[in-house]
């Protein structure tokens, strides 16, 4: 009896081994498990005989039954692992990494803002602080305090949009120099970014554009400091080998005054690109980006500073000009059309 019991159990193992391969799904396998290991399954059926065995046979039969249970379980589990691996592989085969993602709408800054932020970042890094002021300005702040008395030909340099006889749309950010010095004692190190307005509209002028003004006032500020600041600035803004050129000029509120040129960003100052004349600098190797100079003593007098004890420099940059150079924008008027195909290029 024991012998046939033991053989029967071995037969179960063999049968399970033979049939488990036919289970092609987890569902089939579960049915197989129920058939062999279930409460009413084949192993359970064999165990009925165990209960009727005499005490001398029981230990050997019980041990064998346990071994078979373990073996059956192991057989079924290994098949389950195989099936799971197969199904995971099946699922991966349907995974398509090339489908487009659920992309949130992309936003973008206007190129003027991009250039402005970059300029401000570099200058604040050098120690300047940002100030802001009104765009509708009175004549005194915009002109008179800046050494441009009424009926002075220097006023011809800027075509002005007037609100009334004494109120203008600021023609430059320089009134911020006046406003800052009127409200602070030296030392002063500020930059003033913002919109400015001129009565001028053609292919290279728009009636509104953006400037950044910088002002440094302290004891003993020299034009070498101005050049140093500008050199550091343009190297960071454009590239480390960008050069600065001072070309003598005239602004009523600085003395001496200079136009601020930098070596051409396209041709690197060579004047030509691959043998062709450079379209950015028109062969000169230089491009103008703004004006600069030492604060005129008359401006200091107007704001109550003593020109014998303080000196200072100021410079102003055209932001659109910088943006055009940095991003290669050819047409100034595109800045204010706000065509999204233009805007999205600055994402």
């Amino acid at each position, binding site marked *: 009896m024991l012998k046939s019991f033991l053989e029967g159990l071995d037969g179960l193992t063999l049968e399970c081994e033979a049939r488990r391969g036919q289970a092609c799904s987890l569902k089939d396998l579960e049915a197989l498990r129920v058939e062999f290991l279930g409460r009413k399954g084949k192993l359970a059926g064999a165990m009925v005989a165990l209960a009727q065995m005499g005490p001398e046979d029981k230990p050997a039969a019980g041990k064998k039954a346990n071994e078979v249970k373990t073996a059956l379980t192991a057989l079924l589990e290994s098949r389950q692992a195989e099936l799971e691996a197969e199904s995971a592989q099946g699922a991966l085969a349907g995974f398509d990494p090339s489908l*487009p993602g*659920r*992309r949130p*709408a992309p*936003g*973008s*800054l*206007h190129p003027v*803002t991009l250039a402005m932020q970059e300029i401000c970042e570099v200058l604040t890094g*050098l120690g300047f602080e*940002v100030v*802001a002021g*009104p*765009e509708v*300005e*009175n004549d005194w702040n915009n002109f008179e305090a800046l050494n441009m008395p009424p*009926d002075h*030909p*220097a006023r011809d*340099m800027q075509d002005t*949009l*007037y*609100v009334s006889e004494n*109120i203008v*749309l600021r023609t430059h950010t320089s009134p911020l120099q006046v406003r800052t010095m009127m409200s602070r*004692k030296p*030392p002063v*190190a500020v930059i003033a970014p913002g919109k400015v307005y001129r*009565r*001028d*509209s053609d292919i290279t002028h*728009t*009636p*509104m554009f953006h400037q950044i003004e910088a002002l*440094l006032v*302290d004891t003993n500020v*020299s*034009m*070498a*400091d101005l*050049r*140093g*600041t*500008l050199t550091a600035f343009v190297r960071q803004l454009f590239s480390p080998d960008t050069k*600065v*050129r001072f*070309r*003598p*000029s*005239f602004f009523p509120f600085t*003395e*001496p*005054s200079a136009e601020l040129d930098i070596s051409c960003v396209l041709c690197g100052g060579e004047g030509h690109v691959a043998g062709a004349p450079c379209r950015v600098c028109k062969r000169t190797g230089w491009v103008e980006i703004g004006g600069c100079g030492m604060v005129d003593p008359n401006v200091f007098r107007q704001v109550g500073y003593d020109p014998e004890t303080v*000196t200072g420099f100021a410079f102003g940059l055209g932001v659109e000009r910088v943006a055009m150079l940095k991003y290669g924008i050819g047409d100034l008027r595109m*800045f*204010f*059309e*706000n*065509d999204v195909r233009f*805007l999205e290029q600055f994402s």
Partner: protein
Amino acid sequence: MFISLQWLREFVPYTGTVQDLADRLTMQGLEVEAILDPFASIAKIVVGHVVDRAQHPEADKLSVCTVDVGGPEALQIVCGAPNVAKGQNVPVALMGTTMPGGMEIKKAKLRGVVSCGMICSERELGLSEEHAGIMVLPAEFKPGQLLVDALKLEREVIEVSITPNRADCLSVLGIAREAALGFGLPLSMPKLNLVEDEGAGDATKVVRIDIADGELCPVYRARVLTGASIGKSPDWMRYRLLAIGQRPISNIVDVTNYILMELGQPLHAFDRTLLKGDVIRVAPAKDGQSITTLDGAERKLLGSDLLIWDAERPVALAGVMGGANSSISDASTEVLLECAIFRPGTIRKTARRLALPSEASYRFERGVDQVGSLFALNRAAQLMAEVSGARVLKGIACAEPKPWADRSHIFRIDRCNALLGLNLTPEFCRTTLTGLGCGVDFPNEGADPACWQVSSPSHRLDLEREVDLFEECGRVHGLDRIPAVLPKISKALDSVQLSDTEFGFLQGLKAWAVGAGLREAVNYSFVGTDDLDRLNLPVEGRIMIANPLSEDQNVLRLEIAPGLLNNVRHNLSQGNASLRLFEVAKAFVADPASDTSARENSRLGLLVHGARHSQEWPWEQGEADYLDAKGLVENLLTHYRLGSADYVLEPGHAYLEPCVRVELPGKNGPTLIGRIGRVQPKIADAYHARKDIWLADLDADLLRSLTRATKPVFKSLPKFPPVRRDVTVICPATLKASEVEAAIRELKPKLLESLALVAVYAPEGSPERNLTFRLTYRHAERTLVDKEVDKEHGKVLGGLPQKLPVRI
């Protein structure tokens, strides 16, 4: 202004190239904008010799000429001019030449006779208005020679942009001074060869000068010429004027222009027979009087205008334009030549008010050399005598109530070097200053050797202060040679500010908008009144531009919307159908209390239009609506920790419908942050938008001040789990979600931590909709048991139908 190199070389022996000169002048502060060939358009015209002339067989008025143009064979040219004759030298346009007017010369048949070129008149060459016949050239010219070479026309002219401070450079002389300075060359003035004719009389006896106010006219001189014969100026003078863009008129007038261009001194020639009495008076106009200027226009005058009077009436608008009653005509023989200095501001005011800018007024308003004016007068008189055959009376009628006074300044070389950041030597500075024409006085023994007295020359009116001399030293040394030194930027402790500047806040705001998937637009601050009218915006408070460039740029933006709406129109016209835009910019409202008459308010405008998402899979398709615009605003308020706002319908808005006020509740009542709304369809139509335009307009200044007042405050994380219960409220479709929410809160269920709308079900066409709220209950110190939550939640379930017309 235009300067011819040939002319310049009469003052300075410059032998270099025009390009080197241009570069040098530019780096001295005289920006050369262009190098031009003024006669480029006739550069290909050649000298031809008329070997033979025959009558055209078919036409009386045409001649058939055989013209030697230096080539192996003479050309046959048909010519219609009456004066063409055998043996003449004439200008010939060969086949293939393009004439100044643009016409190309081709081989042609004129009434059956072949013509291989054209014999030109002066007008055809742009050399004068003469066109009665062809231009006849001097006999010594060689056939085949280029006309421009034969006539010695100027081929090199530079266009210099002169800054307003450099009045002294508005002449050949001025530029020559700079060239001399730049290249270390001597300057030589033209030799004065004036012959006074004692027999012709004494100018001081003939006319007396009377100046009312020396401030307005520090000096007035006049010379008198007699027996002039008015006619064409000599070729050299005409060509020279032509080369710099001046139209020759007649010999006397041409001389005044020539001297103005050469020496920078404006002159005026009167026909002396037309002047009444023997006095020239310089005195202001009477308010309301008028004068007819020589262009024939009658000019109404103010008391601030300065006039030149004869004994009876005004004869010229001083420094601006002569009068019609006394100008030189072809019949004139007697000339009174005026050479004066006028107060710059006075001339500028008059010239600007009357919109009469002239070469003369341009120079007077910038300042003319008072000392140099005498030379200019004498040279002009000499040239007039030479070109018109006039005799010059002895003497100069003159009044000089305010003679030129030397201006002297101290010059401290150490300050000069400190300002420029250079180490200029005393020798260099002295050479430079004397080179500029300054007088330099060295200090007496015992005085500070580094403090000089420097007087500036009369032609440099801009050298008024010590700092102007510093600039000159720097300019001559080369501003571009200043070394670069990075300064140490020091700051005063009491000027240290909060870090959140206006600029910084607005940049942060832009960064938020970019993160929210919006594209930044930048629009002009001005729009047209039409743009504001279209949006029914009030007329009151508008800030108009007094001198707008155009009607669509004549008023400042009252709100941010007009610019963004124009962007909608532009983009739709370009086929960009879906828009998510933002703009941060100022709105302007008139405010009499402001020192600039304007109140400026930074606004944030958000605009969504068209498809909500990208048109690509896997996004669901849908048009942007209120919830998109509102979601942006809610996200923004969360971004700035401003909590949740109330969204209140505002009927009757100027251009939005619906219009929702965004109000932040506060102790002192709600604060209006801005508005969200849909642009009224009729208005949207005007911008060619067929879909809804949703707009939010928020006060960025207010956001900034509110944000400044809030700080993140840490709260401990909850230790015990929450219990969540949902309630679905069946309510009339007209009942607002916010009303249900408020009613739930009014029932004050204890332990309620938060309340959120989680589902809205609105069956099509039903008068009702279902709102499902999720209530989260939590106790801070222990785990809740179901029973106590049931009790609180029961209050809500029971209470709601009593407060509102709803079912649970």
